[in-house]
């Protein structure tokens, strides 16, 4: 009893009790599985029997055509989503943040843009799969028809599938990124703009010389989450193609390949190697990016 009382009142013991759930989670659900993955990636598992094979899995990976295809697909998706999902929401946020226009319309716009983010990837995937139907009667083909073009077999061709994936990503995430940028913009002191107006700077100049530089932390943050979100994309493709198989593997991503080898084909060693490579790539990109953008310097200066 006395020990318990002491423990409850002790400011020295308390922090460890508070953070204990995190430490347990970290050990049991992160460190242990990750260590296991590293180990598995050096093994070949057949019928539950594991044999050490050194870097064999990594060599197989290096020579595997499909792995590179998946890597290319994921990288392409990441680059394109960043190219679309940063500038466009940025401009839209600037429009909402500007003093002109109707506030009520802006509020409706902001709320509506956010609604797609409420949908699950399952529901969003079903809707987009049906919008990008290859029949002439599907919505996207009707739109294409308006311009006088023939129906496109969207999900059967590489570019068509890519467009569908990017449209899905933009539909779901534009509103969320607008919110990030708006939050960043509203933190910029009004005086900066007043001073600039007095100096005779136009609206565009103000955007490039005040808004953009002050938004740098937000842009860095959004880019960082887009890098790993893009490279780890899987479910969007999984839903759009109704499963992990797509024509000529045009929709196969790195995680999709990991899923195929590890879960569908039970080749745990090889799949673990895929996971390790992806983890290393994502961490390397993010650390480089955060270092280059000076984020670490600011963190340690605090």
């Amino acid at each position: 009893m006395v020990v318990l009382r002491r423990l409850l009142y002790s400011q020295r013991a308390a922090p460890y009790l508070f953070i204990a759930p995190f430490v347990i989670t970290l050990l049991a659900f992160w460190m242990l599985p990750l260590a296991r993955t590293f180990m598995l990636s050096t093994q070949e598992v057949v019928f539950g029997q594991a044999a050490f094979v050194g870097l064999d899995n990594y060599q197989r990976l290096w020579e595997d055509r499909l792995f590179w295809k998946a890597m290319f697909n994921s990288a392409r998706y990441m680059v394109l989503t960043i190219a679309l999902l940063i500038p466009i929401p940025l401009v839209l946020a600037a429009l909402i943040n500007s003093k002109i226009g109707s506030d009520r319309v802006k509020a409706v716009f902001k709320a509506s843009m956010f609604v797609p983010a409420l949908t699950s990837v399952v529901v969003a995937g079903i809707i987009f799969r049906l919008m990008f139907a290859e029949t002439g009667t599907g919505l996207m083909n009707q739109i294409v028809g308006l311009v006088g073009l023939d129906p496109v077999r969207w999900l059967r061709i590489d570019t068509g599938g890519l467009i569908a994936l990017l449209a899905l990503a933009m539909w779901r995430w534009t509103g969320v990124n607008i919110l990030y940028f708006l939050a960043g913009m509203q933190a910029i002191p009004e005086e900066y703009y007043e001073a600039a107006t007095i100096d005779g700077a136009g609206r565009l100049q103000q955007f490039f010389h005040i808004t953009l530089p002050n938004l740098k932390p937000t842009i860095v943050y959004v880019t960082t989450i887009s890098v790993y979100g893009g490279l780890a994309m899987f479910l969007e493709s999984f839903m759009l193609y109704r499963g992990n198989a797509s024509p000529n593997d045009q929709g196969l991503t790195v995680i999709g390949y990991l899923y195929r080898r590890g879960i569908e084909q039970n080749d745990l060693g090889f799949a673990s190697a895929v996971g390790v490579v992806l983890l290393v790539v994502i961490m390397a990109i993010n650390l480089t990016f955060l270092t280059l953008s000076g984020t670490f310097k600011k963190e340690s200066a605090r």
Partner: protein
Amino acid sequence: MSGERSTRTRIQLPYWLHGSVQTAFLLVLTLVVLAPLLIMFVATFQDGNDVIRRGLSFDVDLGSLSLDNYVMLFTDSGPYFRWFANSILLTVVQVAGTLLVSSFVAYGFAVYDFKGKTALFIAVLLLMAVPFEIMMLPLYVLVNDVGLADSYSVIVLPFLAASVTIFYFRQYFLGIPKDLLEAGRMDGATEFGIFFKIVVPVAKPAFAAMAILNGMIIWNNFLWPLLVLRSESKFTLPIGLNTLLTPHENNYELLIIGSMFSLLPVLVLFLLFQRFFVAGMTAGALKG
């Protein structure tokens, strides 16, 4: 500003016109963004097989619309409402658990100094940048090793101490005056008493924002339950809906109306608590 002469050659629109151009542009975009949901809503009144065969479009035969699908949903939708109830149960339990555990951990990080704090907090930050997709295989192997597949506990337990939520609560707790905590100690409260009786009530807005954020993510959670759940009676909505996509069974009506109906709880919450959605969303990362 409307009468202002620009020294540049660029044509300056009058102020009011500029505003209405912007308003029109935003309204068009609003329609474009809502179109997929509207079109899907219209499809809930149509024949499912027809929609699947022809794809979604605004080219609708008005005479063919009927309420049949709605009647089917409420009278003959098989396991659908079982899945719905499962999703509600799982979401409520997991949100409550995540808020409790994560705020608890965050408090430890926010108010105390202890050995290893920096290293552990860096771990929190690092975990925020590891996509779950990378952990899915190792966790899947672990779950199979311990024989816990097809149970809700493995869906919930690994994610109770959620890094984004911990991070958000820590930031919030840092803003609570130390005097308030000291006063609690003077009154003879234990460290945990201080947390539950003083800190939690003060931090209600933070709890609301995180409840919304986590609720949304968990309601839509797909990949991990897809790997873990095996028996149909335990399926959540996204898992159940996904099984309806198979061409072998003729369930397309339920697929379409069930998808739309699954949006309802989130949409209602969004309309009621938009403010907290925005707060929760801008607080941390969001994963699909």
